[in-house]
């Protein structure tokens, strides 16, 4: 990393360290002087917000782990002991519980920002791939964290989701036994989930370093999607974006505090406060809200795939659902190659913009379908059909609409430079 030419520091101690390990030079280069487009809007706050939430999750999580007992007969009560007897334990637990939700809110907005302004495109493909990897790791982490209190909902969600792996041909059954550490969701499952739930956030941290490293090679994208041409288009990261990010973060934290301290259980299902009982199946098993769209995609594959009018089945409905669910995340990795349109920002691509906003609504609708029971009917329409149509649009967006638009969409004229656009907006 930052070796080579180095400006000496005035402070003797700083200089002593920096001449041996140029960490201060690195910080100055990457976080003070770092030239950043001067036209960011508030969507650009969410990367920094996500970073703060990650740190917050790690800190609260480590302290919770000091009081938590990962054992099937003791986990539920140890969490209640944290809630009742550990000093500030209730606050740690509620911060961690709702922190996960707000982490996902931030990252969903962050991903949407990337898609809207075309931040995934050349030369930022690898940066985008690290992002999707972070998202995938976050999902695994949150899923395993949800089982740790050993509640009815957590335990049964773990049962339902791990059971899905049994649909994979040949290795499925073995894989499930490996996940469970036995023949059902039980103490060994809880132990390995705890171990991994502690590990994965640090893996995420590592990937975040790569993600930010890649960002600092290419530089940031911006709402116009055109590259800065020189110093007139950029400002140094500090103090301009440190001030703006701190302001944005503070507003975001206001929402987080309101939920954490006044509605701490609004994202939690009542069955999350009943101890897990493998003999009592809850009437309606739902995952956490941030998984609901993917859960709906899973459940919308209700048919076997094979040769029509014969009994030959290549992929049964269960396996098909699993492929669709994971596929819905995996497909994001390939977005930079589905979309080779030279213009990045949706501002100048009216059709892409409509298709993307429709995708966002589609995703929310999927979340709604995932929340309801599988046989629910609303306004006379069975929700499975709604889920199936939404699933179809979800995949069509990536593999058909975007590639087609990428070849055929005529973009609006781009401004000459960031500076021109900013001045024009000011003059108007």
């Amino acid at each position: 990393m930052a070796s080579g030419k180095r400006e000496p520091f005035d402070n003797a101690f700083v200089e002593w360290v920096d001449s041996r390990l140029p960490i201060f030079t690195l910080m100055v280069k990457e976080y003070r002087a770092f030239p950043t487009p001067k036209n960011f809007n508030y969507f650009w706050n969410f990367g920094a917000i996500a970073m703060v939430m990650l740190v917050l999750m790690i800190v609260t999580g480590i302290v919770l782990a000091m009081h938590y007992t990962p054992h099937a007969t003791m986990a539920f009560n140890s969490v209640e002991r944290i809630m009742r007897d550990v000093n500030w334990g209730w606050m740690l637990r509620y911060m961690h519980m709702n922190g996960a939700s707000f982490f996902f809110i931030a990252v969903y907005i962050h991903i949407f920002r990337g898609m809207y302004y075309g931040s995934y495109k050349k030369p930022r493909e690898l940066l985008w791939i690290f992002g999707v990897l972070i998202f995938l790791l976050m999902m695994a982490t949150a899923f395993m964290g949800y089982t740790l209190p050993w509640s009815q909902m957590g335990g049964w969600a773990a049962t339902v989701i791990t059971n899905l792996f049994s649909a994979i041909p040949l290795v499925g059954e073995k894989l499930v036994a490996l996940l469970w550490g036995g023949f059902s969701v039980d103490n060994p499952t809880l132990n390995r989930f705890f171990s991994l739930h502690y590990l994965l956030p640090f893996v995420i941290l590592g990937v975040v370093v790569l993600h930010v490293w890649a960002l600092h090679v290419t530089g940031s994208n911006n709402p116009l999607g055109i590259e800065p041409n020189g110093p007139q288009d950029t400002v140094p990261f500090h103090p301009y974006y440190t001030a703006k990010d701190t302001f944005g973060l503070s507003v975001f934290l206001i929402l987080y505090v309101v939920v954490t301290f006044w509605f701490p259980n609004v994202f939690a299902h009542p069955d999350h406060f009943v101890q897990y009982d493998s003999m009592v199946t809850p009437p309606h098993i739902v995952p956490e809200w941030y998984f609901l769209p993917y859960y709906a995609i899973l459940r919308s594959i209700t048919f076997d795939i094979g040769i029509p009018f014969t009994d030959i089945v290549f992929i049964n409905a269960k396996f098909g659902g699993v492929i669709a669910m994971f596929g819905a995340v995996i497909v994001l990795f390939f977005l930079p190659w589905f979309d080779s349109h030279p213009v990045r920002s949706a501002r100048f691509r009216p059709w892409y913009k409509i298709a993307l906003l429709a995708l966002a609504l589609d995703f929310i609708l999927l979340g709604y379908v995932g929340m309801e029971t599988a046989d629910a009917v609303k306004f006379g329409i069975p929700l499975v059909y709604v889920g199936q149509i939404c699933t179809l649009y979800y995949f069509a967006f990536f593999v058909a609409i975007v590639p087609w638009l990428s070849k055929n969409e005529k973009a609006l004229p781009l401004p000459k430079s960031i500076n021109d656009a900013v001045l024009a907006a000011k003059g108007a």
Partner: protein
Amino acid sequence: MSIRKFAFSLFALTALALPAHAKEGGGHGEAAQHWSFKGMTGTYDRAALQRGFEVYRQVCASCHSLNLLSYRNLADLGYSEDQIKAIASEYAVMDGPNDEGEMFERPARPSDRFKAPFANKKAAMYANNGAYPPDMSLLAKARHGGADYIYGIMTGYADAPENMTLMQGQYWNAAMHGNIIAMSPPLSDGMVSYEDGTEGTLHQYAMDIATFLTWAAEPHMEARKRTGLKALIFLLVFSFIMYGVKKRVWQDAH
């Protein structure tokens, strides 16, 4: 549609969907009551907590356990140390082994957990026609509707409609999922006489026990809101300042 408008609509949509999610699958027809602990600075009404504890102790405790609570927790209700010692000592708990290796019974101490009515789940079910009276420590959080639900169960008993046949030990209840409950109406007017002179009506009992059970499920609610208020005020002021700082920093940038 501009992206700003779109983001705002999304936010509004989510805000509307959230309460709907919270209600989903809820009981039937329990109306929202007025609770002292609702609202931004709501607190538990201490007198209601003490009355609710009386109802629990005299009625519900013969079937429902409260395993996550210790007698010392009653300090939150406004009882003095001596009162708590006296309350605890009314219950006999198993201890030991003593120096001779024998288990023995002794009066409970403030540090002991609430004594459960049954030794285990099987015994509780055996005594209740096979129905399990759930532990009440988290009941207010473990059901949609919380305190309103508990109030609803207490006051929701009525004759079953003509077309519905109930089995022995089953009762019709407006608040219960599926309207059938295997608990006989536990409360009726005048059943518990209150020391503070409050009139002993079913409505009053139901309000008090629901308040008590909400505290049992969420004993640190008051501290939570107080802490939240400090954090909120800090962040509001900080956001305001940072907005000014941001404006200052950016004024010469464009």
